[in-house]
């Protein structure tokens, strides 16, 4: 077995962005900050998002098969931080962040610098503590042109290791 502390240190040298995943379930909209995201195919355009099993966002995405992935800007650490914690949504805002509901039922936050509206095409991750959602990009938008995304490395936070 590898040394746990060294494994953690190396895994924390991986580079990630910060994203807010949002989906709508039977109990309404749901959102959470995540970082384990990568593109997974050019054609079709697919991304992979890993969500911790048993969390509200994971269960909601499993049920609805649809979600939005929002890019958090380099000056929007507060947006990411607020959505680390689960908060009770109202029909058009979560923790003060306003969203609109797209035709698919997916919530898209006004504040995000960009977003990808995605539909799950495959689930994986049986052996791990996160579910891997492989999803096709249905549509996308850049709401703040030329903005820089927030890098996990430039925040005081860690995820994983």
């Amino acid at each position, binding site marked *: 077995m590898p040394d746990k502390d060294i*494994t953690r240190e190396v895994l924390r040298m991986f580079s990630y962005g910060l994203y807010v995943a949002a989906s709508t379930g039977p109990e309404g909209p749901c959102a959470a900050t995540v970082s384990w995201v990568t593109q997974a195919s050019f054609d079709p*355009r697919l991304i992979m998002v890993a969500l911790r099993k048993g969390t509200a966002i994971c269960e909601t995405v499993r049920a609805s098969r649809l979600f939005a992935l929002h890019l958090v800007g380099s000056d929007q650490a507060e947006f990411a931080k607020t959505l680390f914690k689960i908060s009770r949504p109202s029909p058009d805002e979560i923790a003060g962040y306003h969203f609109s509901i797209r035709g698919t039922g997916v919530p898209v936050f006004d504040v995000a610098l960009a977003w*990808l509206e995605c539909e799950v095409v495959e689930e994986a*991750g049986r*052996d791990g503590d996160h579910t891997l959602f492989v999803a096709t990009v249905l549509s996308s938008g850049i709401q703040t042109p030329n903005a820089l995304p927030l890098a996990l490395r430039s925040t005081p936070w860690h995820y994983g290791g």
Partner: protein
Amino acid sequence: MPDDSPVITSDVRNDALRLLSNGVFVLTACAGDRLHAATISWVSQVSIQPPLVLVALRRNSHLAQVVRQGRRFALNILAADQAKVAEKFFGFVSEPLTTETLMGFAYRAGPGRCPLLTEGLAWLECRLDAEPQAPGDHTLMLGEVTGAGVRRADAPMVLWNTPWSYGGVRES
């Protein structure tokens, strides 16, 4: 430019997909009595317990084939100032076991026989755990971490801070 490597592009910000943040890694493998290496970027941790990482490799690439064959791979994390190392491995590199260097860079064999670049900041060695079914032009390979090492704690290379991009829509 080979299939599994970043492409140079002048406008990386016209596509939301290109705003995803990724690191830059040299993936290495040992299979069929040869050592193999290539620069990749679509990498993420996907489980804490057990520690699993995902690499997305172009489906029919040599790289995907040798990982499947050897059942192991290593990820070498490059430092922010090691663009020249990354560039050397944009093409799929394959050398006999007796080679003293990989593209001129020294390596040591890891516990699982994957070559570990001594220039790299840190390395992880993984056992291929699963290749889940997924559509798309890349195959997803999940590796369970079997070994890890840190050589120095400098800032790692982020694809953002290079002239390259690998993502969005391929320009060919």
